[in-house]
């Protein structure tokens, strides 16, 4: 089954936009260009629209507190223990969350689903894409793509209320360090058992994940709003030689040189919200402009349901209003999150061989009035 999309302006992300065509075969882009030559079974008229790769929401809790299901169905934070690396968002994900369909209407076709920020060591993230299926399994792009950690107000507030460590920023860092040190000890113990050819080694599921982090198999995805928290995160990264992505990075502009130097990617947002916490005081859309100018690897996040993933595009548009480069913001919605998440071989741009994760828009995605009129997954009906 080969399908051709015609009559669209192709925003491939890797090239300047041009009027062109593309061919989809087995869910992949088989050909793309000004004209496509292969014979096809079906032609989709793009009606002069704009064809974009599906946007990637690099930090979301979509599916963990499904739309309209109230607080009793909130699985964002396992806030009963400050160290829960063993919990997995895949286990709690609700694939029928109406927000997934709505996000697709807003052009977001891929989501990285993380645990919340109550715990210094949170849990394992996974990546889903929008499909019509009601099974999580049919949506999984990649499992166990990062271990969530958190700093700042949230762990303090949650465990402060329980009078349990951590109640300070120092305490949060100490909890994280202890976990990673336990991991190092565990790796050593395991190596020793192997060397001594012991018949038995007691595996520990919490520390198996620390091992993955310490061996750089997966990155730490660390929630930081304030500048000092980001610097603490980078300090820990250096100490343990781990991979890291900084999430939110609200005060990025205050420590931009340090972040750039560290080589750590940042996932910025959600800035289209009010500032109910003190640590959000200096939040500004201008952060996007700064990060683009600095050339750091940067992505937009919705933090859904904090901010609806459906309008991630408008947050990026607001960044443009506050001075960010428009093409840069499209990269922050597509190829850069794909790179940060390690899925850029399949997602994030319109190139031959990649997944045909595509939307056709009837207008500019940063204009609220614009609509997605087609995507590659749904039996399409208008809004």
């Amino acid at each position, binding site marked *: 089954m080969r399908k051709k999309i015609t009559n669209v302006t192709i925003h491939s992300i890797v090239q300047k936009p041009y009027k062109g065509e593309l061919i989809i075969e087995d869910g992949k882009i088989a050909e793309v260009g000004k004209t496509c030559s292969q014979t096809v079974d079906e032609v989709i008229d793009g009606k002069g629209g704009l064809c974009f790769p599906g946007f990637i929401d690099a930090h979301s809790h979509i599916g963990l507190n499904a739309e309209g299901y109230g607080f009793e169905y909130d699985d964002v934070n*396992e806030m009963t223990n400050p160290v829960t690396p063993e919990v997995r968002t895949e286990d709690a994900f609700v694939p029928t969350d109406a927000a997934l369909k709505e996000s697709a209407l807003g052009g977001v076709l891929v989501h990285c689903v993380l645990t919340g920020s109550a715990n210094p060591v949170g849990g394992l993230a996974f990546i889903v894409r929008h499909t019509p299926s009601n099974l999580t399994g049919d949506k999984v792009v990649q499992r166990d793509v990062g271990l969530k950690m958190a700093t700042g107000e949230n762990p303090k507030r949650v465990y402060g209320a329980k009078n349990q460590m951590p109640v300070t920023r120092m305490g949060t860092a100490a909890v994280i360090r202890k976990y990673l040190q336990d991991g190092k000890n565990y790796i050593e113990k395991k190596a020793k058992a192997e060397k001594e050819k012991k018949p038995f080694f007691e595996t520990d599921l919490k520390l198996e994940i620390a091992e993955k982090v310490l061996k750089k198999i997966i990155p730490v995805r660390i929630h930081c709003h304030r500048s000092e928290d980001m610097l603490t995160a980078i300090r820990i990264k250096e100490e343990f030689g781990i991979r890291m992505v900084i999430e939110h990075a609200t005060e990025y502009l205050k420590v931009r040189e340090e972040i750039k130097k560290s080589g750590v990617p940042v996932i910025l947002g959600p800035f289209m919200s009010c500032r109910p916490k003190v640590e959000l005081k200096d939040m500004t859309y201008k952060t996007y402009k700064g990060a683009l100018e600095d050339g750091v690897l940067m992505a937009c996040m919705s933090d859904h349901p904090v901010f609806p993933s459906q309008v991630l595009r408008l947050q990026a548009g607001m960044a443009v209003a506050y001075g960010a480069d428009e093409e840069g913001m499209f990269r922050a919605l597509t190829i850069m999150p794909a790179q940060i998440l390690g899925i850029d071989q399949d997602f994030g741009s319109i190139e031959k061989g990649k997944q045909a994760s595509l939307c056709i828009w009837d207008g500019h995605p940063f204009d609220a009035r614009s609509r997605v009129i087609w995507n590659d997954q749904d039996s399409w009906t208008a809004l």
Partner: protein
Amino acid sequence: MLIVKGAQIWKDRGLKRLDFSVEGGKLSGFSPSLLPGPHDEVLNLSGHYVYPGLIDPHTHVGLLEEETGNFAGDDVNETTSPATPGVRAIDGINPMDAGIRNARNYGVTTVCVMPGSANVIGGEGVVIKTAGKSVDGMVVSSARKIVKMAFGRNITWTWSKKEKYPSTRLAVGAVLREKLNAAKNYMANPERVCTYEMEVLANLLKKEAIARIHVANLEDIETIARIAREFDFDYVLDHATALHTNVEFAKTLKVPVILGPLNVAGKSFQSYDVTFASVKILLEAGLLVSVMSDAPVIPLNLVRLQLFLVDRYRLDRSDILDLFTENPAKTLGIEKQTGSLGIGKDADFIVLDGDIFDYRSRIRSTYINGNAVGGEDYEMDS
């Protein structure tokens, strides 16, 4: 020997005019006409219908007692830890519970009694007959060992109220993984010290026991399947409220399912997908389907309502009766002992004054191991 004469009996998936004999609590012979010997007792059931005793594969009768107030008779969830594999339902069952009495009076001769759904690992379940004063004497010993588990919201509602782990569905799977990993470590450790908790889980991993998993939503079923693949154990899906919403997926699982209770309001989001249609859909998909009452959620004096309501979907009536007899027997591993009428099987049967699908018909007597133990008219007595 007891000779039962004159009745229409349900045998080999159909009503047949057969006499039958009972010896030592077992069914010993079937024939269009059995001639009693001089020492035989004869029971003339002309104009009556005999069916195998019904089996309810998922109840809490005897644990969550009726008529005892809210606290005194409630022993269904050991909510002091989210994983309590060491507790056994048999130790909490009161055979005098009105729920068990209801069972036998309304035709249910075998029930599986299990801990509740507040814990990820609730403890061991047990299969018992529904008549007796001592639970030990009621046990159906051929049944496979059962480890009760639960997934989804009941867990998180329970533990988040206590502000304890697991408060979210993020951690429910993690609790199970942690315990199963501990069991693997335990089994691999040549210097292990025997603990009952670990032995129970080791039984599961050795497939001597089967997991019985309370679950409602489809996403939780997916998580169960994922973990079962990771650790390789057998399981049954109990409730499985939303399983019918993805039939192709359901087929891939190749596990028995126990649906129900179906005659409840779908009032929580967990029971949102509840429908009698699920029985039809999953039967047609070729799954081994049973129906539960979850008694006392649906008390067993109402057990036949479910049969009537499934019958509204115009399924083959043999298939419908199987939901309450043969299928649960197979799921529990007791199909050689009970669940149908056949030579060598327990003489567990019910006598009605009409077809079981005729809602006016009444259960005149219930027989367990060949003994009359109840019937609808017994209700007032006990």
